[in-house]
């Protein structure tokens, strides 16, 4: 069946689904879903959207940090998926394929308005003595029970830190730590080797922890050392 014909069936389903009401679609396996999409099966279309739209929106919003951009990314991604499903070769899972399209689309948005600032890694990465010990004591601000306010503030700080992280790093952190993609799938989605992905992930995580720590150490009331638990 030609792409045009699939698209037509998808189209008719999208029109029909409005009146069909909110039936919760079954959850078919990837290959069934792909076959369904290729055949223009109406339920496969709604299934795909139901399964991925919220995740893709979350990822796009996380990378672009802007809801209008995230919406455009979602539109581009699913239009792409429906138009190109014939070309999906199944070398990666359907999810990874969609995540790759989405990551690329979202990163394009970010690159368009890149602030081209050098990241001051040295200021946020941990520092060590010559012997390799921590240069300064490390306070534990992770769960001071009285620091609910601090946790709220940390969310704001985290938002800014995520914004300051280059898009390529942000995408890695989001794919791994929010979407929960395994390392190899995240690497595949970003077109990176596994070691390159791991290096970027580690740096991104350290950056975010560093920025939160910076704030917590100056604004929080860290648990005095030696008395924790």
């Amino acid at each position, binding site marked *: 069946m030609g792409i045009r014909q699939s698209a037509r069936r998808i189209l008719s389903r999208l029109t029909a689904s409005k009146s069909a009401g909110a039936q919760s679609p079954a959850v078919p396996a990837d290959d069934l879903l792909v076959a369904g999409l290729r055949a223009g099966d109406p339920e496969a279309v709604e299934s795909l959207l139901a399964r991925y739209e919220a995740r893709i929106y979350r990822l796009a919003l996380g990378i672009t940090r802007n809801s209008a951009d995230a919406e455009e990314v979602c*539109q581009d991604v*699913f239009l792409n998926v429906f138009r190109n499903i014939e070309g999906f070769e199944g070398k990666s899972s359907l999810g990874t394929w969609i995540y790759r399209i989405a990551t690329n689309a979202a990163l394009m948005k970010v690159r368009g308005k890149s602030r081209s600032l050098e990241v001051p890694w040295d200021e946020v990465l941990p520092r060590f003595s010559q012997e*390799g010990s921590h240069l300064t004591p490390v306070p534990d601000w992770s769960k001071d029970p009285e620091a609910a306010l601090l946790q709220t503030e940390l969310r704001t700080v985290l938002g800014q830190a995520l914004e300051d992280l280059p898009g390529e790093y942000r995408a890695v952190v989001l794919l791994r730590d929010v979407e929960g993609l395994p390392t190899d799938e995240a690497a595949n989605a970003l077109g990176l080797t596994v070691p390159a992905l791991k290096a970027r992930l580690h740096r991104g995580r350290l950056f975010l922890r560093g920025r939160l720590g910076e704030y917590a150490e100056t604004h929080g009331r860290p648990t005095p050392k030696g008395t924790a638990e």
Partner: protein
Amino acid sequence: MITCREMVDLLSDYVDGDLEPMVARQLAAHLRGCTDCTAFLRTFKGTQALVREAACEEMPEELKVRLRDFLRSNLQRGRSRSTN
């Protein structure tokens, strides 16, 4: 003997369960004797938890409707260009 620097370098692999069991055991041993690295690990994991929490924004319903509208009209345009 693992240093704090090596500990931090291996931290992502450690929390992701990607280390050789031998190395993971060495790290665990270092953690037992090092409050700084223990605090570092906790705040590292705490950061991951905050990131997860910060990113779990729901997709607004009206956006889902608009997405379907968009797809319908764009797939339609593709069709009318070629057949109508």
